């Protein structure tokens, strides 16, 4: 039984997948072109931090895509968004000629954080019920109307087609064909 929230679980999973790919894309940019990022933000000298954040984004993205339950990874993204906002705030001072870019970046991150939050919350609300699964006893379902004992070898009259027989080279030398 699933509990439906604002977003259905299927839609939330679809959104999570999109966020996973976004995370990997952004992470790759930060990891492989940190200078481009710092220059655009007027935050030169922070390249190592940006590259480290890139690794974080890639790991989170892979975690979302590879997990059957990406909810915890989405909450991880929300935490990462907060860290990004905190770091960007450091570049929002009046001396930074690119502070308008920093403002746009902060607004974008804030927007994405809302999407991450909504998605993570939807996955939490719609997670499969944790009640124990119904246990069904199939111990009597043999499928053999005359019993499993009688069934053993009942089809030994069947002749294995030639094209499906074990190659003679792999057959024990003393074994005759069954």
């Amino acid at each position, binding site marked *: 039984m699933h509990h439906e929230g604002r977003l259905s679980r*299927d839609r939330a*999973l*679809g959104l999570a997948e999109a966020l*996973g790919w976004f995370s*990997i894309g952004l992470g790759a940019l930060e990891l492989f072109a940190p200078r481009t990022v710092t220059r655009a933000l007027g935050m030169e000298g922070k390249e190592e931090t940006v590259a480290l954040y890139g690794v974080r984004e890639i790991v989170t993205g*892979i975690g979302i*895509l*590879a*997990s059957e339950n990406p909810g915890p990874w989405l909450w991880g993204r929300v935490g990462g968004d907060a860290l990004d906002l905190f770091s960007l705030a450091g570049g929002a001072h009046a001396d930074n000629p690119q502070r308008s870019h920093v403002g746009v970046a902060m607004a974008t991150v804030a927007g994405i954080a809302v999407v991450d939050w909504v998605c993570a919350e939807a996955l939490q609300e719609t997670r*499969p019920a944790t009640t124990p*699964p*119904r*246990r*069904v*006893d*199939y*111990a*009597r*379902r*043999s*499928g*053999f*109307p*005359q019993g*499993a004992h009688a*069934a*053993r*070898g*009942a*089809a*030994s009259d*069947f002749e*294995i*087609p030639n*094209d*499906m*027989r*074990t*190659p003679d080279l*792999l057959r024990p030398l003393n*074994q005759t064909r*069954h």
Partner: protein
Amino acid sequence: MRALRYHGKHDIRCDTVPDPEIEHPRDAIIRVTSCAICGSDLHLYDGFMPGMKNGDIVGHEFMGEVVEVGSENKKLKVGDRVVVPFTIVCGECDQCRRGNFSVCERTNRNREMAETAFGHSTAGLFGYTHLTGGYAGGQAEYVRVPYADVGPVKIPDGLTDEQVLFLGDIFPTGWQAIVQLDPQPTDTVAIWGAGPVGQFCVRSAVLLGVKQVISIDNVPERLAMAQAGGAITINFDEESVVERLNELTGGKGPEKCVDAVGLEAHASGTIDSMVDRVKQATMLETDRPHVLREIFYVCRPAGTVSVPGVYGGVVDKIPFGMVMNKGLTIRTGQTHVNRWTDDLLRRIQEGQIDPSFVITHTVGLEKGPEMYKTFRDKQDGCIKVVLKP
């Protein structure tokens, strides 16, 4: 009519669509009385098989009553009750004449696409991607059956739908998986996966009289059903598969192994399966081959491996050195359904086996989308779902 249609990953809906019509004189139109969700349908549902289009009618395990026949169809008449194999076969090409029906050379109407993907074309399949012809499937009220003068199996009176429905796929699939191992009375056969096909592998191995049948899974209900059918069971969450198999075979390993799992193997506790999951998610490989790796490791040298589990594309880190040095024989393939149906129908009639044992859920067609989830998540003790249009 109503039909289950694919609208994207995790999105199957019960829609109203136009009724099918006769398009070729060899066709027939079948009113579906029972159909089933197959494990391989889940690969479509989970988005792992390429070639599906929005609005495709799904389902390839179905049976029903003939309501219309084309002018050249001399085999069927209106009112006949038939099971329709999931492979569409012409019965005339070189492969069909050899009994290799699943690689029929004529029935895939998207040959070029299949040749690009696989090198050569394989048979057309019902409701299973445009790589295999893009034919409308059988999870519907009516189906157009091409080459209906060859494929459909006429069902004699006195047998219920539930007894014969699986002749269209999972019973012959389990049977072929064991037959192509060339089972011997001295053999141990180990079967990975106790889903519906795995269950029929167990019964087939028992019927064919091997010494020991071992079923490997981690779902208690499935293992209980496999045990009821005569298997020794291994729960891979609770014990080491390799150690237990060696224990059961005096350290030599099973002579014959079956991968009845395919491309969505779940084995969350192993490093290779975690790497597979990451690579599949990031499109660096398409399928998760954990079971194949384990089989190649544990199989007895000079043993045989049978793969009825569906794989769709490329897999990584397959230890082919093991395969070569141990001299393993690998047999694979979609099922040549019509090759086995006469014999298996007789065995059902004689009471050797009643395939209905595997059905755990029977619901109306409109509940199909919900049952895809239930089956995929193995909820509610679900092993096999039958839909009643």
